[in-house]
């Protein structure tokens, strides 16, 4: 019996997965535990392993196709075993979630794919005629029972088609005339090879074509999530410059021990994370998320800080769980290891789940401040700019202090300006008196 390969549900919020690549071809032998394809959820790329040993019999989806979770994406079984031609609809989700609708829509879409003529009702003679004349059976109207296409239908279609001859947009015709281009030598990029002006430019002059990078993988996820957050959530951003004199001192005092103990350096990110975590305990509405469906605000008991990491593929946010309860040693180890995994693209789904607040640190760049976009469904995000020596007034004197630019974007639906400002003020205090963090 051939066994189904399902699109895995890698997290509680995952509804669809995008197939990034197939690691096996149809007909390839597959060992149990061998990766079969790579999938990207809203959070992560992961290789899906085979639960069976056998031969990959069928792939129903191509790279970049978005597939609902629990949908059959392929089959593993014995060589030459019969499997359905089209992907069976997903089952498990149907009863409980509205996802089922998406599944049905999706399968419908794939079966009516215009390039797949195997599902057209046509006689063998009609197929032969269509092949000879280069006619797509999808465009032919069948006159037989149940719209079956007969040979004559193809001939008629080809005749009608022939009368229109060369297809080109009116502008393309004029342009071609002006430039003295013979349209017959131009390959059209439109439907049924219709020629547009863009086809003429590539013909008449050499242009350095821009590189076109497909929006896929993490890039696409980031794009979707940012658009959603930026357009749906009323963002307000508060700014504060924080004096890091004491934090620098704390760091330098702990540094040697830290390296000795963990092999990693203590960085400001961890100090800030710790300060944020401790402060959040006193500001539950900043450590919250909104459930729009149920119209309720969820105040999280755990403080799980997500730390934005830039990778070659794009932005990912690994989560340090229970940040407030961890000491610096633990925090440094965990943060550094998560960062490494992220850059190697080896993060597991659970390492990116459960975040309640996000920190985005651009301090290593010449950035003095920015307005971060909230990582939905969290209530707020902290943007960290660079530290620079700035003249500030201290007790009537002007002193140069290492000031760091902080910006807090919050969801005004969940929390108002004053409580958010109170949080930022408390955070400022925590960072300016970091020894209290050790209490």
């Amino acid at each position: 019996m051939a066994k189904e390969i399902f699109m895995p549900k890698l997290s509680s919020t995952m509804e669809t997965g995008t197939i990034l690549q197939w690691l096996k071809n149809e007909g390839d032998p597959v060992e149990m535990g061998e990766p079969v394809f790579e999938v990207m959820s809203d959070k992560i790329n992961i290789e899906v392993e085979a639960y069976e040993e056998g031969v990959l019999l069928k792939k129903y989806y191509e790279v970049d196709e978005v597939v609902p979770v629990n949908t059959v994406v392929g089959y593993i079984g014995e060589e030459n075993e019969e499997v359905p031609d089209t992907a069976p609809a997903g089952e498990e989700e149907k009863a409980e979630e509205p996802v089922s609708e998406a599944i049905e829509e999706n399968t419908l879409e794939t079966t009516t794919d215009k390039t797949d003529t195997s599902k057209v009702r046509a006689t063998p003679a009609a197929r032969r005629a269509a092949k000879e004349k280069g006619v797509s059976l999808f465009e032919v109207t069948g006159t037989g029972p149940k719209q079956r296409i007969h040979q004559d239908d193809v001939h008629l279609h080809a005749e009608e088609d022939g009368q229109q001859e060369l297809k080109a947009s009116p502008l393309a015709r004029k342009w071609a005339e002006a430039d003295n281009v013979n349209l017959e030598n131009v390959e059209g990029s439109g439907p049924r090879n219709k020629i547009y002006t863009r086809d003429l430019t590539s013909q008449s002059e050499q242009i350095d074509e821009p590189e076109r990078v497909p929006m896929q993988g993490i890039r696409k996820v980031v794009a979707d999530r940012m658009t959603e957050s930026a357009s749906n959530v009323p963002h307000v951003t508060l700014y504060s410059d924080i004096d890091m004199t004491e934090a620098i001192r704390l760091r330098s005092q702990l540094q040697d021990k830290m390296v000795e103990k963990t092999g990693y350096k203590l960085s400001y990110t961890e100090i800030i994370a710790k300060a944020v975590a401790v402060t959040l305990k006193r500001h539950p509405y900043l450590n919250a998320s909104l459930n729009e469906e149920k119209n309720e605000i969820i105040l999280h008991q755990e403080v799980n800080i997500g730390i934005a990491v830039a990778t070659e593929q794009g932005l990912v946010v690994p989560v340090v769980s229970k940040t407030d309860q961890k000491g610096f040693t633990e925090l440094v180890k965990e943060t550094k290891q998560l960062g490494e995994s992220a850059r190697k693209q080896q993060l597991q789904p659970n390492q990116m789940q459960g975040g309640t607040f996000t920190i985005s640190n651009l301090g290593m760049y010449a950035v003095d401040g920015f307005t971060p976009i909230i990582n939905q469904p969290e209530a707020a995000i902290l943007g960290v700019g660079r530290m620079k020596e700035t003249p500030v007034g201290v007790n009537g004197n002007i002193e140069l202090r290492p000031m760091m630019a902080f910006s807090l974007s919050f969801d005004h639906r969940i929390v108002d300006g004053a409580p958010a400002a109170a949080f930022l003020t408390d955070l400022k205090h925590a960072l300016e008196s970091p020894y209290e963090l050790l209490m």
Partner: protein
Amino acid sequence: MRELTYVEALREMMSQEMRENENVFLMGEDIGVYGGAFGVTRGMIEEFGPERVRNTPISEAGITGSAIGSALTGMQPIVELQFSDFITIAMDQLANQAAKLRYMYGGKGNVPMVLRTPAGSGTGAAAQHSQSLEAWVAHIPGLKVVQPSTAYDAKGLLKAAIDDPNPVIFYEHKLLYKTSSEDVPEEPYSIPLGQADVKREGEDVTIIATTVMVHRALEAAKSLAEEGISVEVIDPRSIVPLDEETIIQSVIKTNRVVVAHEAVKRGGYGGEIASMITESEAFDFLDAPVKRLGASPVPVPYNPELEKAMTPQTEDLIRAVKDTLNRE
């Protein structure tokens, strides 16, 4: 030209052969003075005597077994079974002896016999005397199966059957005995087994029909021609061996095909022909599903109207042709 009935053509061929070839003799029930159940051998005992026109007891297995034995010794017997339904009694002799001996003896022995027998319904002879069981014998490798539909074909095919060194089951049709052809030459002639005959040329649909169905197909073709539908009628004449090439070329030309026989459709030889077509190069030329016509899967009723209703008639052929053309 010379007009002759189907019965006369058969009798003439047997007589001519017996005059020339002393190894040929006849065996069967009541084929002597009575002239056989349908009068095919009438008058032959007078010319050839009881040694060569041998009346036998009522035992199909016995007659057939004797014929096989004499054929092995070099004789060329022609057996007549009164009704082809009784071939079931001779089945062991045919399937396990006649069909096998040449093969099992590595060609050291032949069974050059002909078994003539009338098949088909339409005479009110009821369930045990009206069947068309040609698919039974066609299934056995080693037997050849011939089904002439006209007097002309009957004479030429019978000559080929007598000359063939293998056992040949020669199906005659009760309704065709009195039909005549206008151009039956007096001198002996042979129509090779496995050579189909295009009974009518056409462009739109091919009907492949056997025995009595050939005539209904020709009637249907005539009637359809008035509506502008051009039908080609092919008579395979022998189903083993089958002239596949003629059928395939016709289907490639017309793109549509109806296979019609009087035998029950279920398990009938029409299924074999239809499958052969779809397996052949003609597949890519099919513009409609291959249509099969055959009798309903019921015993032949003892009631003239029901008997007609269970077997394909001219109107059924006309409808089938129109079906393949998507026309009402």
